[in-house]
């Protein structure tokens, strides 16, 4: 009798799993993973013979598993129970910080990029500024598990040492380490608007202009329930939601996106009802955004950047009439860029993690003059 019960019960688990898997309606897009999921492959003889069909079917079964997100949460929970402190995607840090785990350090790309920036400074007389934002793992080293240290500090040192002295290089690591507010989101790899403001004051210092003081801004909480990219890499049961704030200033801007859309605000209100709320700042990454502001000084800035600059852009609008925001990953119409747009200043704003893995920035900088 016992054997019968055991057999029926255990086989039943697999059968139920199969039934759930079959009747579950496939979704085409995963919000948590921010990617398209594998769809049921079509039965084509040549695909079956080459093994492609079988491979895609395996992916499909896993991608479309009904309780996929719950499964990830359960794994995270089990790992925490067994005292593990990372899941090879993120560290489970103190105080509900989920911090990206970084791969092996490889400085070849970084070296190329540094050379390109230095070369640009020799070829043009434009005022070039670099602002390399450290990653959460560096700034929040105290939140990481014991014995973990981010080797990205080596990369950052490498950059600081080898960047030409003609360039205004703004260093942020020590500043951000010593601030009293939350410098990075718990659930995302991006920095908070407060950090961006501090970086702005450092930038003003370097550019020898007077920063607009904090009390001149209307500081507003725009979301109380931000769960970003690093959250999605673990989907933990226990977490603390992040607040997104914005520094609003009474000036006019108009943003022209690469597809011709014109908007009169840096902020994308619709993003707040979506999963990826960081896109509240300027929306999805675009190849080029042309920003025109009410700052009537005739000055033009080229901002070469990754997504860390999106929450920083609003401060720049206070000092330039025209800003050309370029994401080199998507932009390739580079020739004569500096002349064509009458650029006065160039600001390179990247996060160190992205910078290290980036090929496009140096390609872009090598071809814009």
């Amino acid at each position: 009798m016992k054997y019968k019960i055991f057999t029926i019960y255990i086989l039943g688990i697999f059968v139920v799993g199969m039934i759930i898997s079959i009747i579950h309606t496939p979704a085409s897009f995963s919000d948590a993973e921010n990617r398209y999921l594998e769809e049921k492959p079509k039965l084509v003889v040549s695909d079956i013979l080459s093994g492609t069909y079988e491979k895609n079917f395996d992916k499909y079964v896993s991608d479309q598993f009904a309780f996929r997100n719950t499964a990830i949460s359960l794994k995270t929970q089990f790992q925490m129970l067994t005292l593990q402190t990372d899941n090879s995607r993120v560290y489970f840090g103190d105080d509900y910080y989920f911090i990206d785990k970084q791969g092996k350090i490889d400085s070849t790309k970084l070296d190329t990029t540094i050379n390109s920036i230095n070369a640009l400074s020799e070829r043009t007389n434009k005022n070039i500024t670099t602002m390399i934002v450290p990653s959460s793992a560096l700034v929040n080293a105290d939140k990481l598990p014991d014995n973990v240290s981010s080797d990205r500090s080596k990369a950052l040192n490498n950059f600081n040492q080898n960047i030409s002295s003609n360039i205004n290089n703004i260093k942020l690591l020590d500043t951000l380490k010593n601030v009293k507010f939350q410098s990075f989101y718990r659930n995302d790899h991006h920095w908070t608007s407060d950090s961006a403001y501090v970086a702005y004051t450092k930038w003003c210092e370097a550019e020898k202009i007077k920063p607009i003081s904090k009390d001149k801004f209307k500081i507003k909480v725009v979301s109380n329930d931000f769960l970003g990219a690093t959250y999605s890499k673990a989907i933990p049961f226990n977490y603390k939601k992040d607040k997104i704030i914005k520094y609003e200033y009474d000036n006019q801007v108009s943003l022209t996106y690469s597809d011709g859309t014109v908007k009169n605000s840096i902020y994308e209100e619709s993003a707040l009802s979506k999963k990826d709320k960081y896109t509240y700042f300027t929306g999805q990454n675009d190849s080029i955004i042309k920003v025109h502001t009410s700052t009537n000084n005739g000055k033009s800035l080229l901002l070469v950047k990754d997504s860390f600059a999106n929450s920083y852009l609003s401060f720049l609008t206070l000092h330039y009439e025209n800003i050309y925001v370029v994401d080199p990953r998507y932009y390739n119409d580079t020739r004569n860029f500096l002349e064509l747009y009458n650029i006065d200043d160039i600001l390179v704003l990247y996060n160190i993690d992205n910078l290290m893995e980036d090929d496009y920035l140096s390609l872009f900088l090598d071809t814009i003059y």
Partner: protein
Amino acid sequence: MLFSSLTFLLYFFPIFTLLYYVIPRKLKNTTLLIGSLFFYAWGEPVYILLMVFSIIINYLIGLKIGSAKNKKQAKVYLILAILICLGLLFYFKYFNFTLDLFNQIFKLNIRYSLVTLPIGISFYSFQILSYIIDVYRGKVKAQKNLINFGVYVSLFPQLIAGPIVRYKTIEDELANRTITFEKISNGLYRFVIGLSKKVLLANTLGSIWTTYFNSNLNELSLGSAWLAIICFSLQIFFDFSGYSDMAIGLGKMYGFNFLENFDKPYISKSISEFWRRWHISLSSWFKEYVYIPLGGNRKGARRQIINIFIVWSLTGLWHGASVNFILWGMYYAILLIIEKLFLNKYLEKCPNIINHIYSIFFILIGWLIFECTDLNKLLPYISAMFNFSNLIDANFLYVLKDNIVIIIASLIVCNNYHQYLTIKLSNNENAYFTFKIIISTILIGLCLVYLIDSTYNPFIYFRF
């Protein structure tokens, strides 16, 4: 198809099993054959032709040997079968490797053929050989039923990763087997245990090993080097014995009794003992069909040493077409010869702990050779293991602490220490039953969760 894939666990396994149970007894073997061929074809359909060819040709040769008028005629067929089996195995597994060696030695540049290794060919070729040789020796009767013979060769539970089932082990069961709920439930439990060894332990330990092994070996600390190779030796054990557990479990569910393939190898007190406990079906195959026919230990000490070298070079080569596998085999040949010649006498006098340390040390070094398909990594790794100027680093402390529960659990499970718990429980039938139900549920759940997680791939901010 792999047992540790969701396609197998959520589709093939439940559908096939239910089908197999409801189908009338007469058709069970046909069902098994079709199911096995489907299982094999999943992902690599072309090689099914090779398998079907092997089944038919060896079936016919088997019949011929069985009905041969004299020993001489039988021998001709035997040699023919051996040539076909080993020829195919050589072509698909060792041809490019041999070409590569030739090219290097004679500075030639012969082009490679584009064959890929058919999954399981090393296992099923050996099964076929054992059948043919045993028919020739008169130990078993030739199988008259093509379907039954096809089932023996292609039986999916052990098709991909063993154990190498000898024909005589399941000869009777091919024709006649009983399936009871007791067997099914024991088989299911064994399957779940094997699956968990593979998914929960082996995969986790494996990722520790690969991270270290692919890092800069010159910077590896002594602690990390040892931790990593220990993780690898646990990984390969759980990977392999997990597969054997799943095979034995599935076999039971469908009415077959395969022999055990692993018997707590890491408790061994000598290398000879290790090889009596590790991958038993392979070492006994080589003993039965190579070592003993070569004369074994009956033709004097010198001949025995040569025989040991031959057998172990072949054993090494069986594991893969690469120089390091041959080295690995020779390494064990040397150790076994040393033990036979004189070391055993001293080992017997030593306390157990010394014997254990001695065995584990050489087994670990053995696994390192086994893993160094790039032989350039071998010396840097070994020197890291003895680099007393770089004992431990922060990363070692982190990885050890991060995985301490998994590592301790692995050490307990690999030597079966958890049996003390289950033996106590098994005195109380009800408690043991409840325990098995609970532990199986948890393990199946965790395995599914881990398998899903392994394909979880957040691709934030880049939509392609």
